[in-house]
């Protein structure tokens, strides 16, 4: 079976085809079909991983250390299905709003860039070659810069530029890390690298490589204090790009974190020899608190959600920093659930951006009267973000607090209390939507297209569904954690 390769090359081949397509609508249809097929393949992969175990695929039939190997284990399959599912849902609803937000002659290029971004993200997860990771990272990043720059506001250009500078520095740091490791080991295959770690673990260059990896990944992950690029990028990107990025981009960076620090360097080296946990823990807590506090004071809801994403990233890295299997599982479950929740919330904002052409909080006053379905979706998504039962957010919170409790109870209290800050910023918007009077009466807004609205509700449904039946994410996360921390 060629599923691991197909997973990546289908969108890759589709991208140039897409830019040759003449009509915007055709390009959309094509892109959507492609992303749906990647989703189908990822489902197949999950099923294969479930029945066979690990799947290896050698590119060009070159054996592993020499050639590039694709390696799908439960962790990769888990993230792959997440990315492709989000991409499919996003694209299904995207047509009308992209026609509104992106200038017409750029449509084919927009979808091409989207496909390339998808390729990059899927590739990072599928490949087992360190340098290949860098290449896919840059494919996804470069297309992301282009996607963000297509935003309607001219600030989008500056946001994309900032992201480009920071993203490139981050990726280059990762490249240096790869180089330093290669220098010591002469291999780029992740498992090969890991096998040689005991021999080379003491070298200074490996330590330096570790440091470069750490900074590079933190940059891509937008972990405090390296998060400056993220809020602007999410705020000014076209609405659907925000949905996709918020739900997937940082998640893939987190995947990279798992891979590099658990698979390549190994748990022992990363956490016992070099104390990554001691760096991650304070940073995560500061990220949670500071970002949540900043989110409370944002006047633009899109930016508010961006800061909330930063806080959520903090929860995910917090799980990692606990250095336990329970923490790792919690981190992965949060990764999965948060992707749907935040995707759903950004989707709501896309609906509103379509309808009233703005996402600023004050313009949302009384929107519940004109757009009841969107407002209701936002409320449900918000409840999930806060982490109340019976939504997916509650499951994440449950596992995180449980994992934190294993380590220390005061930290658990801190985590739980800071999570209450989410109540403040979510409810500020909800009150604005339901309990305030519109600032101008003419603000009726265009009706939201059915397709966009139903995709929003699919996301909302999923973020509730995974709160009621969480067997899939929990099982996958548990299996993945067992792979990473045997």
């Amino acid at each position, binding site marked *: 079976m060629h599923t691991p390769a197909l997973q990546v090359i289908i969108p890759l081949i589709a991208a140039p085809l897409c830019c040759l397509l003449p009509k915007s609508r055709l390009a959309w249809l094509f892109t959507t079909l492609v992303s749906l097929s990647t989703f189908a393949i990822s489902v197949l992969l999950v099923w294969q991983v479930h029945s066979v175990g690990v799947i290896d695929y050698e590119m060009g039939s070159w054996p592993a250390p020499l050639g590039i190997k694709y390696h799908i284990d439960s962790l990769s399959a888990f993230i792959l299905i997440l990315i492709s599912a989000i991409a499919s849902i996003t694209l299904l609803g995207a047509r009308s709003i992209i026609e509104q937000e992106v200038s017409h002659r750029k449509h084919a290029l927009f979808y091409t860039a989207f496909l390339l971004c998808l390729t990059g993200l899927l590739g990072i997860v599928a490949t087992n070659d360190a340098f290949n990771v860098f290449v896919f990272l840059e494919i996804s990043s470069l297309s992301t810069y282009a996607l963000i720059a297509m935003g309607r506001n001219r600030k989008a250009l500056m946001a994309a530029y900032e992201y480009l500078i920071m993203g490139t520095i981050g990726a280059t740091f990762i490249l240096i890390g790869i180089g330093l490791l290669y220098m010591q080991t002469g291999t780029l295959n992740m498992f090969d690298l890991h096998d040689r770690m005991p021999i080379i673990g003491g070298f200074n260059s490996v330590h330096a490589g570790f440091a470069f990896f750490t900074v590079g990944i933190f940059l891509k992950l937008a972990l405090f204090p390296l998060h400056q690029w993220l809020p602007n990028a999410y705020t000014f990107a076209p609405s659907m790009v925000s949905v996709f990025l918020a739900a997937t981009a940082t998640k893939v960076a987190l995947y990279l974190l798992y891979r590099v620090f658990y698979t390549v360097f190994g748990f022992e080296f990363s956490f016992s020899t070099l104390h990554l946990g001691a760096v991650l823990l304070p940073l995560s807590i500061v990220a949670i608190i500071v970002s949540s506090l900043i989110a409370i004071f944002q006047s633009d809801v899109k930016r508010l959600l961006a800061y909330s994403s930063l806080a959520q990233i903090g929860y995910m890295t917090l799980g990692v920093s606990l250095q336990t299997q329970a923490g790792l599982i919690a981190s992965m479950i949060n990764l999965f659930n948060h992707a749907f929740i935040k995707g759903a919330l950004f989707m709501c904002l896309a609906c509103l951006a379509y309808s009233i052409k703005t996402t600023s909080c004050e313009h949302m006053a009384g929107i519940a009267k004109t757009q009841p379905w969107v407002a209701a979706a936002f409320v449900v998504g918000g409840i999930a973000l806060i982490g*109340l039962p019976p939504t997916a957010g509650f499951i994440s919170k449950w596992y995180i*607090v449980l994992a934190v409790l294993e380590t220390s109870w005061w930290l658990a209290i801190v985590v739980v209390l800071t999570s209450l800050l989410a109540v403040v910023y979510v409810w500020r918007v909800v009150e604005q939507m339901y309990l305030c009077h519109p600032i101008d009466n003419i603000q009726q807004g265009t009706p939201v297209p059915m397709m966009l609205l139903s995709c929003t509700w699919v996301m909302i449904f999923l973020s509730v569904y995974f709160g009621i039946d969480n*067997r899939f994410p929990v099982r996958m996360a548990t299996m993945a954690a067992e792979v990473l921390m045997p």
Partner: protein
Amino acid sequence: MSLFTLILASLCVPLAGAIVIFLSRRFSRIIEIVFVASAAVLLFITVSIFNFGSAIYHQTVELYPLIGDIPLAFHVEPLGLVYAGVASSLWLVTTIYAIGYMNANQEKKLARFYMCFCIAMMGVMGIAFAANLLTLFIFYEILTISTYPLVAHKENTEAKNGARAYLGLLLTTSIGFFLVSILWTWQVSHSLDFTIGGILAGKLSDGLTLVLFTLMVMGIGKAGLMPFHRWLPAAMVAPTPVSALLHAVAVVKAGVFCVLKITVYIFGIEVLQSTSANMIIVYIAAITMLLASLVAIQQDNLKARLAYSTISQLAYIVLGAALATSVSIVGASMHLATHAVGKITLFFCAGAIYTATKKTSIKDMRSIGYQMPYTMLAYTIAAISIIGLPPMVGSWSKWFLIDGALSSGQIVLAVAFLISTLLNIVYLMPIAINAFINKPASTEYQYQEAPKSLLIPLCMTALLCLLLFFLMPYFYEFLQRIP
């Protein structure tokens, strides 16, 4: 019908009611019928569950594993039946009252209102029949969220602020303390099931049991213990049926019910007594009981006074639970029912007065008894019941509570109960007395009762206060099954 179906039905009927109301939101007649019908069916279901008798107590009905191997599970036991019975029977009365009130006061967004009401009821039934803490917590939060729109119903600044305090406090306590303590319990005992005798025996040191118990009870913000009581008066901005059902019956009783349930089935009475883990909560409850009464005396707004009275009365129940003797537990669970009946009558009266005269201030209610004789008569009956004087039902529960305090050797607490009773008289009776003295000249008033749909429910509940007094011995036998 099997127990499984019935329990599921008790959750699904209100939910189905909510869905039907949502679908037929444009037809006000239909939603009213559906609203009342779902309440009636729910009461029928509760009675059917009750009719199974003691054979089915503590039979767990598992749906499917929710988190890890903790299932979404339900069971029936006497305590839950009391709560479910009280809530579902009073819900039926309230539905009629609510429809009358909402129509008489020309409130808007009725479909949303009734829908949230139904979902809240689902939360209540879930709490009543939950077989483990996780299930309980989930429905607890469903109740919190679904009542938020009810509190904020008027959509003005006052409602917004009230609702904000309501949600803020309830979520802070439930997530900040309750959830943490649940997780802690899970970590210590690897079980969250409600088990007779508790699940924590010998798992924690005395000191930590004290911390956990305090944390958990304080986390149940719905029980209205000080200092987390502010949401109760804040939520009084809601339309009166909401205050009546949710803040005399469903929400606050959900709080004290949770306290009772964790006392009996998580910590276990013996454990609490042997470790003295209950002492902090006992004193917090006693202080709340007295302070809230004192504050109530100063309130001029009738609903606010009733709200503080509720805080004080809830503290009775928490105190009864925390004393952890079998007598006090019986007293507390009895008080859960008796106070519900009494307080809902009082709220109904407040709503009826508001509907008929638009008066909310107690100062303006002098000699209102001549204007609204039935309402004020009902008020007097309910007030006497709350105070705890025979021949009203409240006297029974108060008797057992004081007995419980005495039997555990806490003379101070028994005295506190008595002082509180005196305070009850001070803040409840003057209204009733003032209503019937100073008969004004006939030109200054006219006979002006609230509409029938408001008057009948409040008369019914007032009668219930009286009737239950004579039926209580039968229920006492039933309540004694609570270990």
